[in-house]
Structures are given as C-alpha cells and as structure tokens.
C-alpha cells in the first residue's frame, strides 16, 4: 500500500513537471522574468547616493537586498499553477481518470503542491545567475545554499498548499486569480521582501513578524549579504509547510470532487 502511494505520487508529480517544461512559453518566461525584476527594481535606486542605500537597506546593492525578497515573493504565487492545473484537470475530465484508480485524494493534492513548488524553485538558479550578472557576489558554502534552497522550498510548499486548499472545491478558472489577489498583495507588502521593516508602521510590523515571506526573505538575505544566520527561521518555514500540507490534504480528501 505504501509502495502504491509512492508510485502514484511519483507518477503525478512527473506528469506535472513534464507538462510544465514542454511548454516553451513557460521556459521563456521563467528565464526572462527575473531579469526584468532585477532590471526594473535594481535600476530604480541605481542613482541613489551610496549613503542612502547603506542607511536604508544596509547594503550598497539594492539588487543583493532584493534578490532573496523577489524569490520569496515568487514562491508566494506558485500555488496558482497548482490550482489552475487542478481546475484544468477537473474541467477536461482528467481528474476523473485519476480518481478512477486507487489513488487517494491527498496524494493528488500533495503531488500538485509539490509540482507547483518545483516549478517555482527553478527561479532560484536563474535569478541567482541574473543577480551575479548584475554584480552580486554569493557565498560559496554549500550548506548555506542548501539552507536557502530548503527555505524557499518550504515557503513555496506552504503557500501552494494554502492556495490549493482554498481552491480545492472550485471548478472556475477565475478562482485562482481572485484568491491570488486576495492573499498575495497583503503578504507581499507586509513582508520584508521589498522594503526593510524599520520603515513599517507598528501594525504592519506585527503582521510582518508572523509572515512566512518575512522569514524566508530575512533568511535569504543573511545568506546573500552575510551576517549571523538564524536557523530557527528555517524550522519555522518547515513547520509552516508541514501544517499547510496537512490541512490541505485533509481538505482535499473532503472536498476534492470530479466536477
């Protein structure tokens, strides 16, 4: 039985990944998008005096400050892929084909969440390369890199699961967009992904302090900019992912329907 679940999970995950990377547009956009982010945002402060950057962002390079934040923000939105592909499967009937095998709904849910997280993870090497081209230098310690990969993965998994859990009963193409607007904006701007916390009002600082995007951005920043690394942030992110995965699996078992 164990073995069956693993096989089913592996099959479904491989399907998601194959489908994604057979679409040349997805590959093109995955590669081009980070350059645009870095080019636009990186340039917006390019003529600011060094003393301002140092005081405001604690680094001379806004790109270096931004990179962990942008990566965290994009992991926030990957759940949309999983939701849309679930809705597509319901609409085109493929969900019926899956559910007419002995596959658990929770397995389908976890495979979809993992699939969209994996899709988001590809941005890390692409973005890091882009940032390096913009002059950011990275640490060479593999442990730090593994930690960063894990942090982004947990963040993505947590939000994909949350996202999918919220859309698990839907068959409407528009739901993921609506939910995305609903959760992405507040979480993005109440985190330290784009701007440092020091300038937030007190109430936003309170939200920011429990926002997983902040954990991930802070964690990533200590890796890119240097500084003492707070490994408990990684533990929080792992806990967040585990909780969301669990809640989502329960919800999928209950509410995932064929149509």
């Amino acid at each position, binding site marked *: 039985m164990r073995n069956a679940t693993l*096989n*089913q999970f*592996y099959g479904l995950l*491989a399907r998601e990944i194959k489908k994604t990377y057979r679409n040349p547009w997805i590959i093109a956009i995955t590669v081009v998008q980070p350059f645009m982010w870095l080019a636009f945002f990186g340039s917006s402060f390019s003529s600011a005096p060094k003393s301002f950057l140092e005081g405001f962002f604690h680094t001379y390079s806004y790109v270096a400050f931004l990179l962990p934040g942008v990566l965290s923000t994009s992991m926030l939105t990957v759940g949309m892929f999983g939701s849309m592909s679930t809705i597509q499967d319901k609409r085109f009937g493929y969900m*019926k084909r899956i559910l*007419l095998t*002995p596959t658990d709904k929770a397995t389908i849910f976890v495979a979809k969440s993992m699939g969209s997280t994996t899709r988001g993870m590809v941005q890390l090497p692409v973005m890091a390369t882009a940032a390096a081209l913009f002059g950011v230098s990275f640490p060479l310690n593999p442990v730090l890199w593994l930690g960063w990969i894990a942090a982004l993965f947990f963040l993505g998994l947590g939000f994909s699961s949350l996202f999918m859990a919220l859309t698990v009963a839907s068959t409407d193409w528009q739901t993921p967009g609506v939910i995305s607007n609903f959760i992405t904006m507040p979480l993005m701007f109440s985190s330290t992904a784009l701007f440092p916390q020091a300038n937030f009002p007190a109430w936003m600082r309170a939200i920011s302090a429990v926002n997983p995007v902040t954990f991930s951005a802070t964690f990533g920043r200590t890796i890119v900019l240097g500084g003492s690394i707070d490994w408990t942030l990684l533990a929080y992110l792992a806990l967040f992912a585990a909780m969301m995965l669990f809640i989502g699996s329960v919800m999928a078992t209950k509410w995932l329907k064929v149509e």
Partner: protein
Amino acid sequence: MKRSDTAHTDAIDCDAGAIVTKGITKRYGSFTALENVDMIVPRGTIFGLLGPNGAGKTTMIKVLTALIPADAGSACVSGHDVRREPKLVRADIGWVAAEVILDDDLSAMENLWLQAKLQNLSDWKNRALDLLRYFELYDRRNSRVSQFSTGMRKKLEIALALLHQPRVIFMDEPTIGLDPGTRRMLWQLITGINREYGVTILLTSHYIEEADALCSNLAIIDHGRIVATGTPSELKSRVKADIVEIALNYEPDMPTFAHMDGVQEAARTENGMRLKVASSESVLPRILSCLNIDGVLKINVDKPSLETVFIDLTGKRLSDDEGRMDMRKFYATLRMTRR
C-alpha cells in the same frame, strides 16, 4: 459502525454477478437521477444499458465506480462493496469515457506509463507494447496524443482501460462520434476483449444496432428507472407490432385512428402521432385514406426491432440518424442561401 456495515452487506449478494445493485437511488437536489435501480450483470458478459439522453446512464456508471455516492441502496462491483471498498473496486475496473479523456501533452506511451503508476503496476511495459500493437498504435507510441485522430484516441483510451487487466470495464457510449467503419472495428475489439480475457463489460449506448450486435443482456433505462431487462431477443419478442410515426402540420383526429381496425395503440406526439399496428402493410392504406395528404410531412415505419421496443417503452427514438439528416439539410440550405 460495525453493525451497520453488516446490515449493509446483508442486503446484497456480491457474488451474484460482476455487478450487483439493489435499490440504487441518486438525487441531484430535488431531481431524482436514479430511482431504485436493481441490476445484475452476470460475469463475463457484455451488458448494455440503453436509454435516451438524460436517462441516468452516466450517473449509474459514476455510482458504480464510486465517483459519486448513491443516496440509497448498495452496489457491488467485482465482488467488492462500492461504498466500503472503493479502492479495491477501482483497482479492478477499467473505464472508457464518452468524452475521450487522455493527457494531450503526453505521448501514448507516457499516458500508459502514468496509468501504470496510478494502478501501481510493476510489469506493465510489455503488456503496454502488446496493447499498442493490438490497437495499431505502436508506430505512434511516442507521438503526443494531441496529434491523434478521434479513432486513435478512442483506441488508446481502451488500451489504458485494459492495462491493469481489470475484471470489469465500464464503457460510456464507446462508439459515439466514430465513423461506421471505426465503429465496426471497435465492436470487434470489444467482443474480442470480452472473449479472450473474459472481462465483463458494461456499456451504455444510443445505438440500437450496437446493443444488438454486442450485448448478451440489456437493461433499458428511462427517467432513472429500469423499464425493461432481458436478452435482445427476449426484448424483441415483447413487441410484435410495427410502429408507424406520422409527422403532420395539422391536428389529427385521434379517435378515428385509435378505433381503426389493426391499430393497437394511437398516441399524439409533438408534431403528429405514433400508431402501433399489427401489420403496417395492411393498415397503412387505411391510415392514409383518413389523412389530409397535403398536411403529411413525413411517414416512418419501424418493423419489430430493439428500436420499436425502445420507442414502445420510452416514447422516444434512440438512434440519432434523423438528427444527422436534418443537420445535412441545414448545411445544404445554408450553402444555397450563400450562393
């Protein structure tokens, strides 16, 4: 829990056939899609579920495959209670959808691979290749399914349904949308699968000749109820009369026809009337003499067949040939007006 389980199984003998149902009722809100359906499909047979659009055929398949729960009644498929052991049921059934469902972004082989993973098969590859050869898809096994024709897609879908060697296969209108040649070829495949592997097949159909050609047992379903069951010849012998359908552009005087010699039954239809007559050859002249010939749009005579059984039981015609004819006429007029 334990007690209700026993009560549940007591009501039904799972071993009475490949598919056994008792009192299956399914409601969508206040609408009853299936009402108290009792059915036994003997092992190793091809069983046809015939009914007009909206009769509840697809709903029945959904209940039997545990895709949707029934509101009342119990069902067993391949010896397992559908409600209590849905996973065991699903490991033992194949499914061919009316609307062909494949992953278009994947190749034929990848579709089979995924099915193998989902069914947790280890030694599937040779069987998959055999199936591809059998269905003449071997040369195209690495092509994306989106490039397949409707017939090829249908064949691949059946290959998917067979991959895990199920004992029961559900086919929802397996030949809908196929040309007569491909349809005939699929009929051969279906009887072949049934004979070679001893698989029980439950198929739904709109085509009377399909049911006649394939099925050893039939159930006719209408408005969610089974209205007749039996072998095709048993059902045919039930209706000995010819059925004459007349389309009119005026209101006919029904009693005249109802009391006519040789007319067993006369019913008003949407655009005319339907008469059950002992022998159309002898009665038709008399009927015609009582009609205003200028008002006759169309006359149709059916000799005793499954079709007449069906019309007799449901008041509807099953084959959609008429619809297709009208469509052709429609296009023809479109083309004429364009000129």
